């Protein structure tokens, strides 16, 4: 049947603008809520199914995990410590690398370019073994923690060099002109004006690198650093319970990345709301 011409939808005739605005907002809110509910329900089903599937293998030995979980989870602080230390030094490598990549002095530019090319052109695992297995042939035996951090920060520093280079170049040209006009030297301009702004520009990207670093830190288990993955692997293989321990380790890595993603989200939101706009 054809609807009567006078119909004005669910609000009926004569609804004022305020009522319409309220109704639109309410309907949007409802739609958002519905989407979220369905999202979580779907996750519940999928994750529950996955858990059932894993459980149905009969290879998850809960009492065994109960005994060994404290030891395996004890690797979490080491994983985090390696990642935090490495991202710190990687950032320093990256700043130096980026300044080199932006240098007009040929040998400096060449050195920085070689660093980036060499490190990005070889597998991280090869670099890790280089520090752990090759250096001792020259009598350089580093403690596991230092060796692990060295390999990770050297590697990530190269990738982050390009991030910082882009960040430095993203600082508006007018900032450099203003500093020059105030009589600041190139070095002062870089240190006091450009880098502080570049760092703010690249903070989201550093967050991404840090989350990737948490996962890649598993590779430094090969320098015998007893972080999360080393513990899971060692306990699992010596008791023929690798399935249980690796599932546990995977869950922990997943949880860590979710937590740090949330932290990063919060940080970005805070930055977006800050008075400092670049």
């Amino acid at each position, binding site marked *: 049947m054809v609807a009567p011409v006078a119909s004005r939808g669910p609000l009926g005739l004569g609804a004022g603008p305020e009522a319409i605005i309220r109704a639109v907002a309410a309907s949007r809110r409802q739609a958002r809520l519905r989407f979220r509910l369905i999202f979580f329900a779907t996750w519940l089903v999928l994750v529950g199914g996955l858990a059932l599937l894993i459980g149905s293998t009969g290879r998850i030995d809960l009492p065994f995990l109960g005994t060994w979980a404290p030891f395996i989870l004890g690797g979490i602080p080491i994983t985090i410590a390696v990642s935090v230390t490495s991202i710190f030094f990687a950032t320093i490598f990256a700043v130096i690398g980026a300044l080199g990549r932006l240098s007009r002095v040929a040998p400096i530019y060449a050195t920085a370019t070689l660093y980036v090319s060499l490190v990005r052109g070889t597998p991280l695992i090869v670099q890790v073994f280089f520090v752990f297995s090759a250096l001792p042939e020259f009598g350089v035996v580093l403690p596991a923690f230092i060796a692990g951090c060295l390999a990770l920060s050297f590697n990530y520093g190269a990738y982050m060099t390009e991030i910082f280079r882009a960040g430095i170049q993203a600082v508006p040209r007018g900032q450099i002109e*203003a500093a020059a*006009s*105030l009589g*600041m030297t190139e070095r002062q301009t870089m240190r006091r004006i450009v880098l*502080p*702004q570049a760092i703010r520009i690249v903070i989201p990207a550093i967050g991404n690198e840090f989350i990737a670093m948490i996962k890649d830190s598993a590779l430094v288990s090969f320098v015998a650093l007893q972080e999360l993955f080393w513990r899971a692997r060692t306990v699992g293989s010596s008791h023929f319970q690798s399935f249980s321990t690796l599932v546990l380790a995977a869950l922990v890595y997943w949880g860590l990345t979710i937590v740090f993603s949330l932290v990063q989200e919060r940080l970005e939101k805070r930055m977006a709301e*800050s*008075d*400092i706009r670049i």
Partner: protein
Amino acid sequence: MTTASPGGDSTAQDPFAAPGVLTPSGAPPIVRALDLEKFYGSNHVLRGISLEVYPRETVCLIGRSGSGKSTLLRCINFLEEPTVGTIEVDGLVVEADPLHARSARHREQIRQIRLRAQMVFQEFNLFPHLKVIDNLIEAPIRVKGVPRSQAIATAEKFLAKVGLSEKRDEYPGRLSGGQKQRVAIARALTMEPKVLLFDEPTSALDPTLVGEVLKVMAELAHEGATMIVVTHEMAFAREAADRVYFIDEGVFVEAAPHSELLDNPRDPRTRDFLARTLRT
């Protein structure tokens, strides 16, 4: 056209130059831009232009966009490198060096010129990561070596002068365009420059905010600051300028005391430009 001989002693003169009303008698020009030429690739932007400005006078440079007025201004403190010519500011002479083959001593000379010729930009270029007060004390402390407490006192004095004392601890992101530009002017003043260069200081502003900036600039002009102002604001030129230069295709077409140029332009190009500008 004559060319500047090496050493900066030149026969070329700005035919329009004349001491301003506030210029101490007998004082020589404090800014000399002589026979400047500037190429961007094959684009000939400045074509042998000379400008001489006396102490305590205000000159306005007007002209269409692309006429070379901003380029001329930016050449004076070497934000642009002239292709040919000589810049002299407060007795410091630097020759054009298009090949950028300067020695460290020469680069230091340019830095000294910049200290004396402070630029105020169209886009303000405040440092967004520093509070207003820190924007104002950064260069005095780092560049001139002024003690922090003294730099703060000077900064507060100039903030008061531009009427923004209450914005002392805000970040630039919280200021309106007009306030940003007034802070930028205060920042330039804290360096106690010999000459202020204004590069279209109100062109990026909302029309309602132009007045507050022009008011500050007019005050400075009346107090005897030496100012070179690239602007489209004819009312400002009329009120504050000793001389107005009309630039077209990289040369000065004419220049005259403000009312003379604005009211009785001689050259048809000037007349045409003013007719278009004043109508809009």
